[in-house]
C-alpha cells in the first residue's frame, strides 16, 4: 500500500462530507418537524444550521480542489473526488430547501389553520428517506442502494403533481384558502427538490463506485429512439 498520506486525505474528505450530510439531513428533518408542529423555534435551528452547512460546503470544495491540484488523482480516486464535489453542492441545496420550508412555516404563522387535501407528511417522509438512503449508499459505497433511490423519485414527483392539481382546485373553489394552498404547494415543491438532490447524490454514488453515468438515462434513450425513428 502506497500513497498513505493521499489515502488519509481521501478519508478526511469523506468524513467532512459525512458531517455536511448529517447537518443537511438534520436540517430537512427539522424543517419538516417545524411544518408539522408549526414551531418557530425549530425554524431558528434550521436557519442556524444553514450557516454551518454553507461553511462546510466551502471547506469541502477547498479540500477537494487541493487534492485535485496536488495529487492528480486517477480512476476511482478521481471519480470519488468529483462525486464529493457534486454531492457537496446537492447537500447545500438540501439545506436551502430546508430553509425555504422553514420560511413557509413562518408565513403560515399569520394564517388561519386549514385542512388541505395534500399529504405533506407522507411526501416529506419519502423525500427524507431518499436523502437517508442516498447517504447510506455513499457511506457504504453501495451502488445497489443508490439504484434503489432512483426508483423512489417517481413517487415523489407524482405526489408533487397531485398536490399541484388539488391545490389548484382548492384555490379555484375556495379563494379564501388560496394563501394556505399556495404555501402548501411551495412546501411540496421544496420537498420535490430535496428528492431530486437525493437522486443526484445516488447517481453520483453510482458514478463513483461503478464509473457509470446514469444521469438522464431515460430521456437520452427516448431522444435516441425518436431520432432513430425519424431517420427511418
Amino acid at each position, binding site marked *: 500500500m*502506497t500513497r498513505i498520506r*493521499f489515502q488519509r486525505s481521501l478519508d478526511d474528505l469523506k468524513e467532512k462530507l459525512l458531517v455536511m450530510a448529517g447537518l443537511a439531513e438534520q436540517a430537512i428533518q427539522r424543517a419538516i418537524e417545524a411544518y408539522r408542529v408549526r414551531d418557530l423555534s425549530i425554524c431558528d435551528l434550521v436557519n442556524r444550521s444553514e450557516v454551518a452547512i454553507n461553511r462546510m460546503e466551502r471547506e469541502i470544495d477547498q479540500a477537494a480542489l487541493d487534492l485535485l491540484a496536488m495529487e*492528480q488523482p*486517477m*480512476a*476511482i*480516486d*478521481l*471519480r470519488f473526488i468529483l462525486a464529493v464535489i457534486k454531492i457537496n453542492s446537492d447537500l447545500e441545496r438540501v439545506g436551502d430547501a430546508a430553509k425555504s420550508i422553514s420560511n413557509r412555516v413562518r408565513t403560515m404563522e399569520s394564517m388561519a389553520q386549514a385542512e388541505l387535501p395534500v399529504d405533506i407528511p407522507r411526501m416529506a417522509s419519502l423525500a427524507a428517506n431518499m436523502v437517508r438512503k442516498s447517504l447510506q449508499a455513499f457511506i457504504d459505497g453501495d451502488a445497489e442502494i443508490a439504484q434503489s433511490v432512483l426508483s423512489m423519485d417517481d413517487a415523489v414527483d407524482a405526489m408533487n403533481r397531485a398536490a399541484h392539481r388539488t391545490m389548484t382546485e382548492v384555490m379555484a373553489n375556495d379563494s379564501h384558502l388560496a394563501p394556505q394552498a399556495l404555501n402548501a404547494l411551495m412546501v411540496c415543491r421544496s420537498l420535490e427538490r430535496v428528492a431530486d438532490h437525493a437522486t443526484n447524490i445516488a447517481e453520483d454514488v453510482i458514478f463513483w463506485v461503478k*464509473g457509470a453515468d446514469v444521469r438522464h438515462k431515460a430521456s437520452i434513450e427516448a431522444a435516441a429512439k425518436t431520432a432513430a425513428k425519424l431517420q427511418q
Partner: protein
Amino acid sequence: MGVGIEVTNLNAWYGTNHTLQDIQLHIPANHATALIGPSGCGKSTFVRCLNRMHETNPIARVTGSVRIGDIDIYQDASPVEIRRRVGMVFQRPNPFPTMSIYDNVASGLKLNGYSNKKHLDEIVERSLRNSALWDEVKDDLKKKSGASLSGGQQQRMCIARALAVDPEVLLMDEPASALDPVSTSKIEDLIFELKSQYTIVIVTHNMQQAARVAEKTGFFLNGRMVEFDSTHKIFTNPSDKRTEDYITGRFG
C-alpha cells in the same frame, strides 16, 4: 502516413529472463498509443521489439510476429530497413556532439546515401519545421553544434533526425522525462501534431502525459499486457483491478 502495427504472440527474453510474455496488440495507424507500467515491466523491451533493437543485445531473443503495415518485421525486412521505417527517440537526447545541427538532422539520410544538397536542405528544413524547432535554429544550422542546444531543443532535434528519413512509425521511450515542464509541453504539443502523419508509440512514466497525448493506452505488468483500451477508459474506469491500483498509485 502512419501504418497500423499488429503484434501476435510476442515473447522476448534477456538470457533466461522471460521479459515479454504472449503480447497480443493492435496499435492503430495515425494515433498516439501510450504504454505505461512500473519499472522493469517490459514496456521499453516491447518498443525495442517494434524496430528490432531488442536483438542488438547478444543475449536477447524474440519469438512471435510484429507486422508494421503489410510487412512482418522479423520475416520480410532487414533491421536496417525496419529502423528507417520505424524511428526512435530516447529518454535522453542523443545528439552527435561534433556535428552541426544540420548534420545531426541529415545524418540518417547521409547514411542512406543521400547526397543531393538541395534535396537534403529541403528535408532538413521540413523535419525541423515538423519538430517545431526551425524558427529557433534556422540562423545557426551549420554554425552551431547539436550539443550546444538546450535539452528540450536537443530532443526536438533528435525528433527531426528521426523524421528526416520519413518513417511510418515513431517510437518514443520516455521522451520528456529529462526535460523541464516547458520543454515537456512542447514535446507533447509536437506529438499531438505529428500523429496525423505518423503512428506514435510512447513509453511514459508520467500518467498525466499519457492521458494528454494518447488515444490508446496499454498497461504492462511483469512482462504482460494487462489491459489495453482507450486512454479515457484506462484513466477514468479501468477494467482490471491491477490497472486501477497502478494508476491510482496503490503500487508501483
